């Protein structure tokens, strides 16, 4: 119960913290809309039918990933810069419980941009939002947002020890768009990419969202894989955090000075 409350309260306050700047809020909307427009324009030339809906969903999940990957990796660097990282580490609460709500708040902002992207596609490009299984669709979005938050958590943990690890988030942003099939189906990618894609929860989340929307395939299987990978990220992150925190305490990388 304490853990649920801790995650809920810290997630809410982190969300509040991140939503305070109107400029940042506008950017988190405009950034994915720019990419979504490119995708819509590309696909509209090829196929105005179901593929366009698939592209619209892909573009919307891109927003969640972009809002989480770059910011999650730099989140702890920001905490370090403002002098709060040491206070988080010095708290008696295990560190992973404090980092996860941070990245979850970012994924939540991503979900907000996801909804905007779908509505943008509907009203500006006329892409109908047809959802065959509404409950599975909402569930898929929720699990995907959570899983992306967990992947962001894994990225964030690295920057506790390595001050420059925040750059990793930016480096991974666009490759994940491709590898996880947000833009093009996995089947069109080279064979060696697929095992990498299977290890990434957003691949399965994306597939579940598409299945639930189009009614093709079983979203539950994809959703289970997505959820299991998210749990795996959480466990790896928790284990890594202990080692990385000890290394940070040895190497004195928690503060800037």
């Amino acid at each position, binding site marked *: 119960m304490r853990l649920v409350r801790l995650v809920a309260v*810290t997630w809410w306050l982190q969300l509040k913290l991140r939503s305070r700047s109107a400029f940042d809020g506008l950017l988190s909307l405009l950034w994915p809309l720019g990419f979504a427009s490119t995708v819509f324009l590309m696909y509209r030339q090829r196929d105005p039918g179901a593929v366009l809906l698939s592209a619209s969903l892909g573009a919307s999940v891109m927003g969640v990933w972009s809002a989480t990957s770059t910011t999650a990796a730099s989140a702890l660097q920001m905490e370090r810069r*403002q002098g709060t990282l040491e206070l988080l580490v*010095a708290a*008696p*609460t295990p560190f992973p419980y404090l980092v996860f709500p941070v990245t979850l708040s970012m994924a939540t902002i991503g979900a907000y941009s996801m909804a905007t992207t779908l509505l943008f596609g509907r009203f500006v490009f006329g892409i109908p939002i047809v959802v065959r299984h509404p409950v599975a669709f909402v569930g898929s979005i929720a699990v995907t947002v959570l899983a992306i938050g967990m992947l962001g958590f894994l990225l964030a943990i690295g920057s506790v020890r390595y001050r420059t690890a925040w750059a990793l988030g930016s480096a991974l942003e666009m490759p994940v768009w491709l590898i996880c099939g947000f833009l093009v189906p996995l089947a069109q990618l080279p064979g060696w990419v697929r095992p990498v894609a299977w290890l990434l929860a957003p691949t399965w989340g994306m597939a579940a969202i598409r299945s639930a929307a189009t009614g093709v395939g079983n979203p539950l299987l994809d959703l289970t894989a997505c959820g299991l990978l998210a749990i795996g990220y959480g466990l790896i992150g928790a284990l890594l955090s202990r080692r990385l925190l000890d290394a940070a305490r040895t190497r004195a990388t*928690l503060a800037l000075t």
Partner: protein
Amino acid sequence: MGVIEADAVTRVFRSSKGLLRRTSAEIPAVRGVSFAVQRGELFGLLGPNGAGKTTTIKMLITLLLPTSGRLRVLGYDVVAQPRQVRRRVGYVFGGDRGLYERLSGLDNLRYFAELYAVPPREQRARIGELLELVGLAGRERERVEGYSRGMRQRLHIARGLLHRPDVLFLDEPSIGLDPVGARELRAAVKTLVDNGTTVLLTTHYMFEADELCDRIAVLAKGQIVATGTPADLKRRVTGGNVVEVEVFGVPDGVLGRIQALPGIRSALIEERGQAQLLTVRVAPGAEVIQPVLGCLDGTRVGRFVTREPTLEDAYVELVTQA
């Protein structure tokens, strides 16, 4: 058994640079420091910048691992039992950082109350009580980015006290505070100690240490050079008088001649606006006024004072001799 025990603690920082030909350097920040703080005591760590005060505190609150030696807080080893230590200690540092600027003061306290496992039913009352204590009641819903430095510092103190720590570490808490704010802070610290909290304080302000601390350890170059009550330190180090002379335009070489006079323990000149202040520490029983004035022959001399040594005199002498 002390509430805080440091036994032969050392901390070495390692840094490396270069991409192909990597070179590394070792910087010893703390070298064989040992001390013990008793329950309910207010213990001061004094020393110049880089003396190892903050490093020592960061090891005690589990943010840094010692390179060697042993540190215990309330009987818990800071390396092997960090969570037990973290539950029972509070940490407040000076300056503008360490708060979420875009959140209100109240939200900052709510956040840290969760982190420090303050029971939900107690949180509201505890936060209200602390806001009253630090004088921020009524301003708690404003964003921290609009707070003055003093308000931020007071919010830091409230944050550090949320979980009623048995031991409080204050790392230069009054830095940047105005005199009234600093006085209020000292009063709040005294109240905490009266209520049984053990406090370890670092400060650059000697009058603060003199007023507050039961005992003091002076650190210089990572080592403890003296330990005792403020009165002990004053007696041990100087034992004589201090002569202060306001002078204008002291020629080169005069300071050296004064330092070489018999009965002079130390002499230094500080710039004070257009004037300079010559401070001479005199050995007990020595008569130095005429010889010092003789050395200053031809130099314009202003105010001339002979006074009892202060803690600051003791401190300067200790760290310059280290």
